[in-house]
């Protein structure tokens, strides 16, 4: 157990050290931060546009981050031979697979956490259809600069990884800023944080929807980890994208063909993840509370799905050839 924890922490650190992880997060944050600007070109439904776009960005960038993390930490390790060092230690293949998956999931959790906090801030920035909250906008982009500065200083003074330190700073700054602005807004302490009553998005409606994105990205992380035991980054990305596209539409067609709740539709849901389960844009648009039972059911579905793919990952890794490039 202790070995798995050690290996998981190391895998997570490796993911966070990857410049591509930082770049993905940075790109997602910049996009989410700019959505309030874009939404000024629409009439009404400004908050809906910001919310939908931010959630879609989190989901898509999370998918790419999942594939890149698993490809960098699993396929590269298997290709360049560092896996040999691990496997020659008292570490089982099962422990290796589990720890890699856990490490990747922790780093993806950080990714989605930062994006979700950014989404909340972005909604607050989009005050109404004619105005933006400029102080909050400055705070939003200031946090990106502050994180980069922190990473740069740590890199310059202590030769620590820029990427991991910048990501760590973002992981602290964004949730803290989101929490503080939420509390200030709740207590009506500041005028600039108040939204138009029409576009008001209550936290208890938004948060469950944002939490569902964690499950979607975790599932994609586990799938890409399993594929990374046999595939290089391009193949992995292609298969994950295909699964994403099929998973988004298959259940609609399956329900049409076999009927809702039929064995055929159920089989489709079991084979390909139903991404629609995690996409709550319509619910948010109508300001409907997501029932707790739905949240729990989706969590159970995600856990079962992840467990099945971890089994696949172990099966695929069991006989895979290690360190191909060293032969």
């Amino acid at each position: 157990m202790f070995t798995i924890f050690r290996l998981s922490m190391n895998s997570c650190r490796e993911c966070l050290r990857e410049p591509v992880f930082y770049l993905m997060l940075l790109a997602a944050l910049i996009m989410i931060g700019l959505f309030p600007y874009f939404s000024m070109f629409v009439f009404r439904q400004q908050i809906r546009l910001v919310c939908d776009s931010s959630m879609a960005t989190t989901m898509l960038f999370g998918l790419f981050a999942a594939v890149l993390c698993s490809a960098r930490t699993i396929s590269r390790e298997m290709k360049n031979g560092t896996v040999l060092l691990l496997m020659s230690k008292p570490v089982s293949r099962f422990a290796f697979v589990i720890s890699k998956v856990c490490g990747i999931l922790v780093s993806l959790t950080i990714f989605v956490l930062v994006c979700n906090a950014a989404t909340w801030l972005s909604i607050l920035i989009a005050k109404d259809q004619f105005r933006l909250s400029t102080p909050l906008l400055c705070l939003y982009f200031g946090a990106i600069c502050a994180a980069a500065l922190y990473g740069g200083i740590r890199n310059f003074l202590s030769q620590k990884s820029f990427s991991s330190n910048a990501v760590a700073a973002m992981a602290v700054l964004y949730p803290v800023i989101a929490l503080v602005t939420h509390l200030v807004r709740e207590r009506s302490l500041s005028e600039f944080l108040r939204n138009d009553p029409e576009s008001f998005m209550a936290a208890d409606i938004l948060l469950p929807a944002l939490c569902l994105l964690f499950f979607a990205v975790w599932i994609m992380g586990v799938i890409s980890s399993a594929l990374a035991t046999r595939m290089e980054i391009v193949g992995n990305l292609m298969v994950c994208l295909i699964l994403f596209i099929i998973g988004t539409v298959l259940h609609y067609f399956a329900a049409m063909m076999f009927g809702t709740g039929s064995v055929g539709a159920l089989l489709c849901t079991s084979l390909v993840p139903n991404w629609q389960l995690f996409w709550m844009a319509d619910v948010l648009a109508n300001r409907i509370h997501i029932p707790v039972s739905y949240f729990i059911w989706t969590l159970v579905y995600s856990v079962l799905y992840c467990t099945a793919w971890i089994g696949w990952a172990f099966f695929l890794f069991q006989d895979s050839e290690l360190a191909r490039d060293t032969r």
Partner: protein
Amino acid sequence: MMIEAEHLFKRYGTRLVVDDLSLRVNVGDVLGFIGPNGAGKTTTMKMISGVMPPYAGKVRIDGIDIEAEPRLAKSRIGFLPENAPLHMTMTVRAFLAYAGRLHGFHGRELARRVDRAMERCALREAAGQEIESLSKGYKRRVCLAQSILHDPKALIMDEPTDGLDPNQKRQIRELILSLREETAVIISTHILEEVEAVCSRVFLLCKGKTLFDGAKDEFRAKADALHTDLAGLFAVMTEGEQA
């Protein structure tokens, strides 16, 4: 017997790369595992170190079956893979500490072992440096340090001096000779000069088949009988087999 391999076979698809290989190495022995490229040396090293399961056959380390009790058997093995694969973004000390923790060492014991391994491999001055910034020779020494950190009873080294300068080669060879007092050592190499310098036994492999297994003096005597050197004998034996 510290390292025992019995009737090992390995296939990659339909291709048989190791064909009924058996070997025994005891403490005090340094076995030079030689063969041309593609002979199956690295595959055999991986099977003996427990990284890769054999298609058939048994490997025992200190009497422990590596397939039946992999954790216990692996705790007695030090493995230096080819090309010194390492986690490049870690510092030398952090990497060795990580390797030590995987062997179950903590606290002072871990710090002591990391310090000793760095001392033995002359890594003190590079302790705080990121592995990526090190020279090839230093990287190889870091990899060697992780393999001896836990005082293994069986040390398996794949091309340990490949790419090192003459001084570094001499240092590594001295270290190997100092280790053989308490350790059974297997060195996979295609550098015959290495066999001459450090090995007490020679194991010649070609196309997965054993061509020679005996003392270095026997191997040299065979070369003398053919009025050639070790390289000449190597060529005669392996080219004949490859033809």
